[in-house]
């Protein structure tokens, strides 16, 4: 009993907790090798085979999802299209700079689609916009914490 008591007491030491946690997690991850894992190919927002678009010399590769800017929406397989009235319009939109870039070079698809409009914006700001609110809130909170600690405690100050 006293030995169990000692173990119980040791478990209450904060320094041991991350170690214990990672050990338990590691053991459970091992189960992943025994479970049949397979990718269900019927996914939301599927994308073409890797390198397919770029080898077909598509200037918008690898994020081309069709559509004509401001006229016709692109093709997007979202979960609830009925809740997103303008679905695909964001995907089909190219900002003027992006448009001119796409006409001059074949290999700048990533940049074109990172600039306003495009698939990632569709997902990040429209169909799954709430996620973006959260993730940038996480960043902001972490920054608030870090900068508060830094300004008040850890940074050297010249009074």
């Amino acid at each position: 009993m006293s030995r169990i008591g000692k173990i119980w007491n040791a478990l209450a030491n904060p320094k041991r907790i991350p170690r214990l946690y990672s050990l338990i997690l590691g053991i459970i991850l091992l189960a992943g090798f025994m479970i049949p894992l397979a990718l269900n190919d019927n996914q939301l927002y599927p994308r073409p085979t890797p390198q397919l678009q770029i080898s077909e010399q598509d200037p918008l590769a690898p994020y081309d999802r069709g559509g004509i800017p401001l006229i016709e929406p692109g093709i997007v397989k979202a979960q609830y299209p009925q809740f997103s009235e303008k679905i695909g319009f964001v995907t089909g939109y190219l900002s003027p700079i992006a448009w001119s870039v796409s006409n001059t070079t074949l290999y700048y698809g990533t940049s074109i689609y990172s600039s306003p409009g495009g698939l990632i914006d569709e997902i990040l700001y429209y169909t799954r916009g709430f996620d973006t609110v959260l993730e940038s809130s996480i960043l902001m909170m972490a920054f608030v914490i870090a900068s508060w600690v830094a300004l008040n405690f850890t940074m050297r100050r010249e009074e």
Partner: protein
Amino acid sequence: MANILLNVLIAFLVGSILFGLQRKIMARIQMRPGPPIIQHLLHTLKFFIKESSFPKTAAMPFYIAITAMLCVIWVAAVIVGPVTGGSLLLIFAIYALHKIVEHNAGSSSGSPYGKLSCVRAVFSAAAEVPLFAVLIIIYLKSGTMVISNIISYQTIHGPLLYSIPLAAAMFFVLILSKAPYSPFAITKGKDIVSGYETEHFGLLRGYLMISESIAWYMLLWVFLTVFVGGLSPLWYLAGMIVLTTITAFINATTPILNPNHSIMMQVSFAVIGIVGSIVLLLYI
């Protein structure tokens, strides 16, 4: 509305009397005469005519609101449970809130005893794991989370007490940990005066005691409903008296444990219970 009021009143009165009964039985086991059964109820009522005073160090609106919250959530539990037969998960959510309120009633006063009780309450949050395990096991067995459906499941298949006895045992440990003077009642151990209630006087203490009585009644009610099935009120009363008597026997004969040990003991019970229940579910 009248129904709710009725049930709340019943819960309060029966809970108080059960607490009194528990004290009486414990006293008799320890060869003392003990207070009358009605004592706990009188105690509660007494606080409503005492003067209320507030410590200077308290965190102000919070300190008062927290007692009201405790009352409100247990009234809500009565509404979910006996009145409407709603979701079991909801009752457990209420129980989780109860833990939080209990812990912050302690810390908001600024008293060192309350603080210790608060830290211990956080410790004992670890003991809520069996609670959630119980929920999952019940769901796996009966396939529903709604109390009225669980009752009808039991009328067909017999009480769950026989098919998942380990889950019932885990739940009983939880009930035990809520009983005053139990080996797991570290938040209200006499080494920290009255735990989280130390700095609550008058009206506030009255509210705390009312909600504790309702909580005790509700816990027993949930145990009887979920593991034995729908009973007539008389049988509920009998079951509650039996459970209270058992806890009284345990409490009277065991010492209070050290906080770490109390938690780890509960967690160990939980591990045995969970593993055992899963084995039982798989092979029987």
